[in-house]
């Protein structure tokens, strides 16, 4: 940024000026040139280049720097010269408070490293404005982090003390009474082993035992809402969208109970269900059955949306990806397959283990998947396109159950022991070297779930239910409009209505949930082609360069060709440069997924019934790839490319902090 020249520092001595004055009579335009020469810029004179390659991402330095100032360390960067007020007092913190780049990055939805498309200036300028707005929004959101009241929990050992050695009893002793009350054991030996499920707000707990015991309670106040015996084996239990409805996978059929324990429905089309998953934004209950079917039941209308045959025998390992609502199934041949109700074939198949897959878990950001297999391995996979294992570890017994917490802790149930590993933060994978906590239970683990918004891990085992304290597991600050543990009945009812109104159709489930806001390049090109066909000519096409004939014999054929070649080379060079700067070929038109305040131009059509290549060219690609791809796959290799031609950008992918915020120089 240019600074105001200090008086006397940069101005050349008066002598020079006088000399120039003497030399020749001054013209009115010379004033300006000498003025800038005398100014602070020692380099070459600034050109107003109309360079189309350059992204005009810094609209005006002066006014933006006032709006969003950021620095790496808060309060480190002060304005160079504090303004003096009338009284002479200085404002020590002039200007808006700085925001750290990392925090802004968290809220940023656009990728600045990606080039903007450059078709028409009008569109382009609109995009530039939209990006600026988006940036401002993310800075505002980052500022509002100041208002978050709660801090996450933690557990630290003394020097050299291993936190894994710390017992639950020690933690209970050390923490406050309210937290200590969250640790409890339910001794239910008769009806064991138990499966359990917390409601989305983390307030309610439902559990069902193999011998038919089903109960739901408000576990914070320990108030029992219902307790019944269904007189049948209970395979799995799951809350539906609110704590008022409960789905129980029983020996024959799927049953739905209300919070009084009254049976509301018996869904006979879902039989011999082994595992249940509820997709809260789609109101879909996914059931995996012994017969090998993955069935999606829309609980808002009571219809079966899709019944997919996985063709892999009995399904007993299932989990959902909370980021994109894709269902992960673990199979006995060591593969994990990813399913969406819109596709009859799996989106992706990943060969994870030698031997069968015993448990799968996906973290809340949708970046990491943990699997454990019969080969006693525990692996953490990267789900962002590469599907490669990030880390692996052999466990003596192998984990039978896995669960991720909201802040990225990984719990594994091995026999009657629960191990918990922690990572660096929310979006980082858990490091499997050293467990964070361990706990031995009174029976074999049969179900694991971290309680949302509480530092608690619920474990269902053959001896009953144990509620473990895991400091630092949960997100401390909940969003009241999304899921509020303290909501009243009225608030719940209101939320229910709103959630139903914005129920996402099942067809929209695909690997990248932001695909809807991106340009569908394939259909865009198709539309362009059709338009050119309809019109009889391509309105966007440029006429090929035709050199003008020159006078006096210079227009020989050779020179014409030469000139043509020259222009062609130049164009080629420009486009090549563009390709290098941006992205692989064919991807240049992909628009950045801009945030809520921005507009997009030619979208992905949302329903597959209308437009065959949808929902997700990704899926189609995957299928195609499978057809071509050979069977030889090593561990961690994917059989099919899951992604669209170019690398679809993931908003959550860690990027190097972008340092081009205006106040950083």
């Amino acid at each position, binding site marked *: 940024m240019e600074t105001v020249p200090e008086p006397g520092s940069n101005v050349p001595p008066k002598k020079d000026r006088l000399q120039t004055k003497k030399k020749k009579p001054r013209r009115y335009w010379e004033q300006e040139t000498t003025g800038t020469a005398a100014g602070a810029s020692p380099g070459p004179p600034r050109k107003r280049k109309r360079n189309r390659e350059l992204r005009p991402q810094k609209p005006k330095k002066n006014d933006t720097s006032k709006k969003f100032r950021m620095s790496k360390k808060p309060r480190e960067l002060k304005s160079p010269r504090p303004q003096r007020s009338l009284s002479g007092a200085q404002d020590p913190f002039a200007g808006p408070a700085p925001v750290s780049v990392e925090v802004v990055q968290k*809220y940023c939805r656009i990728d600045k490293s990606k080039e903007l498309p450059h078709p028409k200036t009008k569109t382009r300028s609109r995009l530039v404005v939209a990006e600026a707005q988006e940036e401002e929004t993310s800075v505002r959101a980052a500022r509002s982090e100041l208002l978050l009241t709660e801090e996450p929990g*933690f557990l630290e050992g003394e020097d050299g*003390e291993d936190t894994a050695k710390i017992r639950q009893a020690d933690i209970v002793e050390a923490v406050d009474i309210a937290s200590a009350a969250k640790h409890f054991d339910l001794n239910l030996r008769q009806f064991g082993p138990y499966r359990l499920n917390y409601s989305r707000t983390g307030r309610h707990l439902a559990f069902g035992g193999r011998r038919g015991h089903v109960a739901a309670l408000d576990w914070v106040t320990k108030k029992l809402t219902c307790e019944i015996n269904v007189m049948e084996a209970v395979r799995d239990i799951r809350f539906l969208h609110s704590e008022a409805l409960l789905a129980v996978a029983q020996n024959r059929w799927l049953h739905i109970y209300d919070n009084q324990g009254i049976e509301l429905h018996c869904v006979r089309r879902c039989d011999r269900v082994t595992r249940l998953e509820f997709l809260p934004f789609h109101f879909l209950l996914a059931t995996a059955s012994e017969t090998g079917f993955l069935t999606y039941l829309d609980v808002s209308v009571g219809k079966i949306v899709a019944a997919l045959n996985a063709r892999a025998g009995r399904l007993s390992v299932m989990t959902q990806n*909370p980021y994109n609502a894709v269902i992960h199934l673990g199979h006995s041949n060591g593969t994990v397959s990813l399913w969406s109700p819109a596709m009859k074939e799996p989106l992706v198949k990943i060969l994870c283990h030698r031997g069968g897959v015993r448990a799968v878990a996906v973290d809340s950001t949708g970046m990491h998947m943990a699997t454990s297999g019969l080969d006693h391995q525990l692996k953490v996979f990267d789900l962002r396109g590469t599907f490669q294992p990030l880390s692996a570890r052999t466990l003596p017994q192998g984990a039978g159950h896995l669960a991720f917490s909201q802040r990225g802790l990984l719990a594994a149930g091995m026999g009657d022991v629960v191990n918990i590993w922690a990572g660096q933060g929310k979006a980082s994978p858990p490091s499997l070297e050293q467990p964070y906590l361990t706990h031995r239970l009174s029976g074999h683990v049969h179900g694991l779930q971290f309680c949302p918004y509480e530092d608690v891990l619920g474990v269902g085992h053959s001896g009953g239910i144990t509620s473990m304290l895991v400091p630092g597991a949960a997100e401390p*600050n909940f*969003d009241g409009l999304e899921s509020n543990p303290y909501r*009243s009945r009225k608030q719940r009812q209101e939320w229910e209505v709103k959630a139903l109104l914005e129920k996402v159709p099942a067809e929209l489930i695909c690997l990248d949930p932001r695909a*809807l806001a991106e340009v569908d390049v394939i259909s865009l090109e198709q539309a362009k082609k059709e338009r050119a066909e309809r019109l009889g000519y391509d309105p966007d096409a440029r006429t090929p360069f035709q050199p003008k004939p020159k006078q006096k014999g210079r227009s020989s054929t050779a020179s014409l060709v030469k000139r043509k070649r020259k222009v062609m080379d130049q164009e080629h060079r420009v486009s090549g440069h563009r390709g290098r700067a941006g992205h692989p070929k064919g991807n240049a038109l992909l628009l950045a997924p801009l945030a809520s305040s921005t507009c997009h131009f030619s979208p992905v059509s949302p329903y597959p019934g209308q437009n065959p290549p949808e929902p997700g060219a990704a899926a189609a690609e995957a299928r195609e790839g499978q057809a071509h791809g050979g069977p030889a796959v090593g561990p961690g290799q994917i059989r099919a490319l899951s992604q669209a031609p170019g690398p679809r950008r993931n908003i*959550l992918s860690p990027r190097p902090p972008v340092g081009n915020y205006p106040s950083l120089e």
Partner: protein
Amino acid sequence: MKVKMLSRNPDHYVRETKLDLQRVPRNYDPTLHPFEVPREYIRALNAAKLERVFAKPFLASLDGHRDGVNCLAKNPKSLATVLSGACDGEVKIWNLTKRKCIRTIQAHEGFVRGICTRFCGTSFFTVGDDKTVKQWKMDGPSCGEEEEPLHTILGKTVYTGIDHHWREAVFATCGQQVDIWDEQRTSPICSMTWGFDSISSVKFNPIETFLLGSCASDRNIVLYDMRQATPLKKVILDMRTNTICWNPMEAFIFTAANEDYNLYTFDMRALDTPVMVHMDHVSAVLDVDYSPTGREFVSASFDKSIRIFPVDKSRSREVYHTKRMQHVICVKWTADSKYIMCGSDEMNIRLWKANASEKLGVLTSRERAATDYNQKLKEKFQHHPYIKRISRHRHLPKSIYSQIQEQRIMKEARRRKELNRIKHSKPGSVQMVSEKKKHVVAVVK
């Protein structure tokens, strides 16, 4: 060992008494708000549907005229007052809030051809088929007084239109020629002609107030500068222009309502190509009026409908029609930009909302926030096929619908023929002419 558990005090999250509002802590972390795009998309879809559900634009019909309504005028000082002139020479002044006629004047014998208010709103002018220009007081006569014009000018020829200067005591009439009058005098300051055809309307530019535009039945639009005695320039179109309207925000932009079912937005600095050709009507366009924001205009057509066009779009965003509305002769956009009035053949003046689904009356801040949010969502997802289809859908009367189909076929046939002609002639000898250039015959300076 150092340990801290997450332990919330419920008092910070639950309201104290029943009289308080519920506490709603927010956290904008994107991981706590999954499926942002699909959920916004569904919200946008719902908003688009609700917009269509609440689209009830028709507000009132003002009846009382005994013949077709020929011209309308707004009062620049009062939003509630509207003036209308009918084909039987009657002028009525309406109160829109009461939706009643407050005054009736038998102004002329034969048609009232034009009506305009003075910029101060104290008086108005009418011209009629009886070759007179009359100035009337806006307020009615007091008790016992007779209804009489302030001034009457007897002319030699029939006047077909009138418009008042926006700042000075000057008005312009048109007929055989464009006359510019001082209010104090009984003869025009100057008369301007270009050709010998009857001029159907004349309009002052609201910004560059010396400029005038007129359209004549010999297919041309003529621009004048009041300060010089001769016209500036003219553009000749394919067919006759019925009326023009200046953009109240951009001084050099005007829109012409043409007989060939189209409207043309011109930049007066470059008349050889219109800035935009607005096509959607299926019959002659009779009147056009800009919204005070200058972003949109409304057009009245012989096809018994009125349409609202954005200035920069060639297709209309809205069409209004009712079963009873016949050929719409005149249309006005009110000065608060919220309503549209149209006068039609079957003696009624209709009042419409400019924004069909807008909620009238005072909005609470939450209501306004919700509508703003929905508006933004619709804008963001406007190109998605489902949302586009819902928000574009309009019910049309059968006659208009079938005519649109018919004209589409005709247009397609013409285009095909042109393509064939290009295909079968020497390359480069027949050029594709763009839609904008097709309709301008010539520009004369």
